[in-house]
C-alpha cells in the first residue's frame, strides 16, 4: 500500500497527473450531463404546459 | 480594376499622415527593445530580427477589420460586387490597399531601423526579403479571415486567436536568413488559399 502511494519517489508527479486527468474528465462529464438534464426539464415543462 | 484600386487607396490614404502614423508605430515597437533588454549591441541585433516581425504582424493583424468592413457596413460592398462580379478583383484590390497602407511604410524605413540596430548590410537585404514575402503572405491570410468574419464587430482578439496560428509558419521561417524561398512559397500558397476562401466569405455575407 505504501509503495502504491509513494510510487518509488515519483508520487507528486504521478498523482497530480492522474488526479488532473480524472478531475478534468469528471468535470467535463458533469457539465454536459447537467446541461442535458436542464434541457430535458425544459422539454418536460413545455409538454406539461401543453397537456 | 485600377479604378477600384485607385478608389480604395484614395479612401485609405485620405488622411495623408497615414504614412507617418504607421512608421511611428513600427519605430516605437522597436524602441521598446533597448528599454526592455539593455543596449548591448550584439543582443539588440539578434532581437531586432525577431521583434520587427512582431511589429509587422501586429500592424497587419490589428487593423484587419479595415479591409472589408467599412464598405460592408455602408452597403457599398454590394454595389462594388455588382460592378465587379469577379470577386478576385475586389479581393486583390483590398489586399494591395492593406499592404500599401500597413506594410509599405515598414520597408521604407527599414534601412534606418536596421542602421539603428547595428544590422550588417548583407543581413539587411536578407531580412528585407524575408519581411517582404512574409508580409505578402500574412496580408493574404488576414484578408480571408476578415472576409469570413465580416459581420462580427469588435471581435479583433478572437480574430487574432484565429490568425496568429496561421502566421506561425511565416514567423518560424522569418528570422532564418536563408529561408526567403520558403517564405515566397508560403506566401504563394496563402495567395491561392486566400482567393478561394475570401471569395467564399464575401459571397456568404453579400447574398
Amino acid at each position: 500500500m505504501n509503495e502504491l502511494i509513494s510510487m518509488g519517489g515519483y508520487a507528486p508527479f504521478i498523482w497530480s497527473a492522474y488526479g488532473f486527468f480524472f478531475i478534468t474528465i469528471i468535470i467535463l462529464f458533469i457539465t454536459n450531463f447537467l446541461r442535458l438534464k436542464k434541457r430535458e426539464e425544459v422539454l418536460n415543462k413545455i409538454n406539461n404546459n401543453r397537456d | 480594376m485600377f479604378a477600384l484600386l485607385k478608389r480604395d487607396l484614395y479612401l485609405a490614404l485620405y488622411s495623408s499622415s497615414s504614412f507617418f502614423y504607421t512608421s511611428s508605430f513600427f519605430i516605437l515597437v522597436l524602441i521598446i527593445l533597448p528599454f526592455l533588454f539593455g543596449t548591448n549591441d550584439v543582443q539588440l541585433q539578434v532581437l531586432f530580427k525577431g521583434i520587427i516581425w512582431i511589429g509587422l504582424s501586429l500592424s497587419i493583424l490589428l487593423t484587419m477589420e479595415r479591409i472589408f468592413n467599412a464598405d460592408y457596413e455602408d452597403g457599398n460592398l454590394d454595389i462594388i460586387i455588382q460592378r465587379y462580379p469577379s470577386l478576385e478583383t475586389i479581393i486583390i484590390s483590398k489586399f494591395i490597399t492593406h499592404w500599401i497602407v500597413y506594410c509599405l511604410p515598414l520597408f521604407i524605413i527599414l534601412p534606418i531601423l536596421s542602421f539603428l540596430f547595428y544590422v550588417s548590410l548583407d543581413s539587411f537585404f536578407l531580412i528585407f526579403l524575408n519581411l517582404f514575402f512574409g508580409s505578402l503572405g500574412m496580408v493574404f491570410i488576414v484578408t480571408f479571415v476578415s472576409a469570413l468574419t465580416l459581420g462580427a464587430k469588435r471581435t479583433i482578439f478572437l480574430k487574432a486567436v484565429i490568425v496568429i496560428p496561421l502566421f506561425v509558419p511565416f514567423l518560424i521561417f522569418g528570422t532564418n536568413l536563408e529561408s526567403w524561398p520558403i517564405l515566397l512559397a508560403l506566401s504563394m500558397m496563402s495567395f491561392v488559399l486566400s482567393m478561394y476562401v475570401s471569395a467564399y466569405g464575401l459571397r456568404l455575407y453579400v447574398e
Partner: protein
Amino acid sequence: MNLRLTNKQINIIEKANPFLIVSTIVAFTFGLYFSLLQSPPDYIQGDSMRIMYIHVPSAWFALMAYTILAGSSVLWFITRNPIFSIIARSIAQIGMIFTLISLVTGSIWGKPTWGVWWVWDARLTSMLLLFFLYLAYIFLWQSITNKDLASKISAALAIVGFVNIPIIKFSVDWWNTLHQPATISKLSSPSIDISMMVPLFIMTLATFLFLITVFFIRLRIEILDNKILRIREVK
C-alpha cells in the same frame, strides 16, 4: 432545422447512455489497476512512466477529435446535412479538454523523465497550437448569432486549421534541426513491452468509451435543443 436522424438512431443514442457510463467506469477501474499496480516500473524511468498510460490516450484522442472535426466539416460542406455540423460542434469541447490534458500530463511526465517542464519541439508546439485551434473554433460558434452562418464559417476555419497543423509541425521540425540538433523526442515511449501494452490498451479503451459517452450526451443536447426550438416555433 431538420436533423435527418431517424428516431431509431436517436433511441440508440439515448438508451446507450447507462451502458456506456457503466462500461467506462469498469474499463477505468481495470485500467487503473493495471497501470498503477499490475505493470512493473520502467527500468530507466521508474514509476513516472505510468503517466504514459493517461498521457498517450489523451494525445491520441485530442488528434483524433480534431480529425473528426475537420472531416465532419468537409462532409458538411459537401452534403449540407446538419448532422455533420452538430458532430463537429459536439466533438470540439471534448477535443479541447483532451488536448489540455495531454499538454499538462505531458509536462508533468517530462519533468522527472527529461528534466524539463516544457520544450519547444515540433510535437509539443503543434499540440499547443491544436489547443488554440479548438479554442478559436469554440469561441467562433459562441460569437456568431446566426447559426447558419456560424456553421459555414466554423467549418471553413476547421479545415484551414487542419491544413495548418502539418505545416506547423514541419516548420518547427525544420527549425529545430537548424537550431537544436539534439532534440529529445518527447513522445518516444520506452520500447513497448507486452506488460506495458496491456495497461495502455485498457486505458485507451476506457478513454474511448468515455469520449463516446460524453459525445452522445452532447448529441442529445443538440437534439433536444432542436426539438425545443421547433416546438417554440410552432407555438
